[in-house]
């Protein structure tokens, strides 16, 4: 059996009134810098920058997971590749954001094409296990690259420059860039899922055989979706490196990949903004718990189990459909 039975029908949550909750989420995120400045600290801007960056990766992953029905358990590897793209270039004195993004694309696209082509030939369980194994492969690669810090990670001297100027130096400016890129990502994914391309992807999830009979070359569609979602994760990785001024093998550990999947399921599988909501809730929970106890994972673990058992439609799915059913 495949995972399709576990997925809600995207059409059910994509009602005409499905947009306002998304706007609500983005309005809240846009208010964070003002609240943070009012409180006299940049802490909340940094925290929410990280949340938005991982939320962006989750939105990207959801393109293949929620809409395409392909459970990739190695997607953090592209976050890591994006982070190392920034780290490696910075180390050689190339600090321009454009150059970083270009280098990220030059790394992520071929890697995703190769891994996607091999993994997508398998189905269901095989795909889960193989994407996880590839994630581990790149984790080991990063750990053993001693010239780039090995398992201690790679410290980045300063945030990327735009046209030679330090436009992103202030937390607010960086926050603005992340928010804008996040909104753009959400819009692109939303548009893609409603395009003929996205419908083929969803159709393949619901009935692979039917789509094959209709003559669609599914491997090509799925590979394209896989590469797009990898590039989004790579972009998130670039931003994460710029935020933390650090690139670490931990960015691509399998627990990071699993956390991305947990965000998606918590927020809502068949929705564009759901994974972002999942990221906000999960990472805020993590932040609160880890400030109180070193053993916070002992609570987060069972929380994820509870999400599986009880959040069948996801937080955002419940929110959006609740609104949609109003007269």
């Amino acid at each position, binding site marked *: *059996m*495949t*995972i*399709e*039975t*576990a*997925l809600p029908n995207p059409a059910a949550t994509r009602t005409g009134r499905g947009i306002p909750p998304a706007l609500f989420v983005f309005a809240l995120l846009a208010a964070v810098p003002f609240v943070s400045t009012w409180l006299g600290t940049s802490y909340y801007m940094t925290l929410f920058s990280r949340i938005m960056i991982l939320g962006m990766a989750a939105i990207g992953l959801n393109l293949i*997971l929620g809409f395409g029905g392909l*459970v990739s*358990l190695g997607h953090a590897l592209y976050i890591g590749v994006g982070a190392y793209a920034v780290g490696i270039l910075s180390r050689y004195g190339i600090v321009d954001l454009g150059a970083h993004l270009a280098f990220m694309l030059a790394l992520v696209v071929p890697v995703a094409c*190769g*891994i996607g*082509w*091999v*993994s997508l*030939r*398998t189905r*269901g*369980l*095989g795909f*889960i*296990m*193989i994407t*996880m*194994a*590839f994630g*581990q*492969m790149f984790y*080991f*690669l990063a*750990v*053993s*690259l*001693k*010239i780039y810090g090995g398992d201690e990670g790679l410290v980045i001297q300063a945030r990327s420059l735009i046209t030679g100027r330090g436009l992103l130096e202030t937390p607010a400016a960086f926050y603005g860039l992340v928010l804008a890129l996040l909104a753009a990502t959400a819009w692109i994914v939303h548009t893609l899922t409603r395009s003929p391309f996205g419908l083929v992807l969803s159709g393949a999830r619901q009935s692979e055989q039917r789509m094959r009979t209709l003559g669609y070359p599914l491997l090509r569609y799925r590979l394209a979706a896989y590469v797009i979602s990898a590039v989004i994760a790579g972009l998130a990785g670039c931003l994460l490196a710029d935020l933390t001024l650090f690139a670490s093998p931990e960015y691509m550990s*399998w*627990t990071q990949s*699993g956390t991305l*999947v*947990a965000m998606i*399921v918590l927020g809502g599988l068949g929705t564009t903004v759901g994974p972002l909501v999942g990221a906000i809730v999960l990472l805020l929970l993590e932040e609160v718990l880890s400030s109180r106890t070193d*053993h*916070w*994972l*002992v609570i*987060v*673990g*069972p*929380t*994820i*189990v509870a*999400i*599986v*058992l009880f959040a069948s439609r996801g937080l955002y799915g419940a929110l959006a459909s609740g609104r949609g059913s109003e007269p």
Partner: protein
Amino acid sequence: MSAQFLVSQMLNGLQFGVFLYLMAAGLTLVLGVMNFVNLAHGSLFMVGAYIAAASFERSESFAVALLGAVVGTGLLGLLLHGTLLARLQQAGHLKQVLATFGLTLFFNELVRIVWGPSSLYMQLPDALSGTVAVFGITYPAYRLAIVGAGVLVAIGLWLLVHRTRIGMLIRAGATNRDAVETLGVNINALNAAVFVLGAALAGFAGGVAAPLLSVQSGMGDPILILTLVVIVLGGIGSSKGAFQAAIFVALVDAAGRTFIPLILRSLMDRSLANAAGPAVASMLIYCVMAIILAVRPGGLFAARGR
């Protein structure tokens, strides 16, 4: 490089293959019969190692330690299956993956709370702490005993699956579980039995590995991922495939770690080779996996695709 070095590297590879087989045999049965993805299998390995190390410290008896690991993880498997995993049986792979991922985070932290943040170390049993002479080299007796134990377990498992009534039901369940259920077999009890067997095998592997590794939180994760590679290459649900693939994976890994640094050193500057050697060696098995799957998506040893 001497022939002795080569033999001892290959024996190390064989011994690692036995670990992978013990892990993969249990997991592939659970996958085949229950169609269930259990990422917490690595946690069971870890818990087995912790129980063995902790009970060896108290009892000073290796037999007690190993028995504790097997029984403890078996009971833990029964508990997990009864409380949670049976409910996820029909829930689809995504939910199974995520729930068992949550369990892994939980157990990795739980062992830190119960046994403290620093690693535990376990001594070798006195009877096996020496070395023996095989193939013209002296080799640690304990490691050789692991290979022997692995072969015994493999034979026992083969007999169980192919020569007993419960084994027949396991094979039938893997082929068509609905038909087996219709014939009046209590499929839940069968599932529980298979799950406990898999858990106990993982606990056994952990207990046996405890004297060779530092017993610490997260030690099961890398083993789990290599186990998944073994299962994919062996063909999901195939015990025989798991055995062949485990030995294959371990030998390729050992050969990579032995030869790749040497080859690189002959090709490039020594310092560069020393930097690149471990990187290439640790990636080798994944590259081999990618190539094999590109050619044969159903796995290398699979008799049937699934």
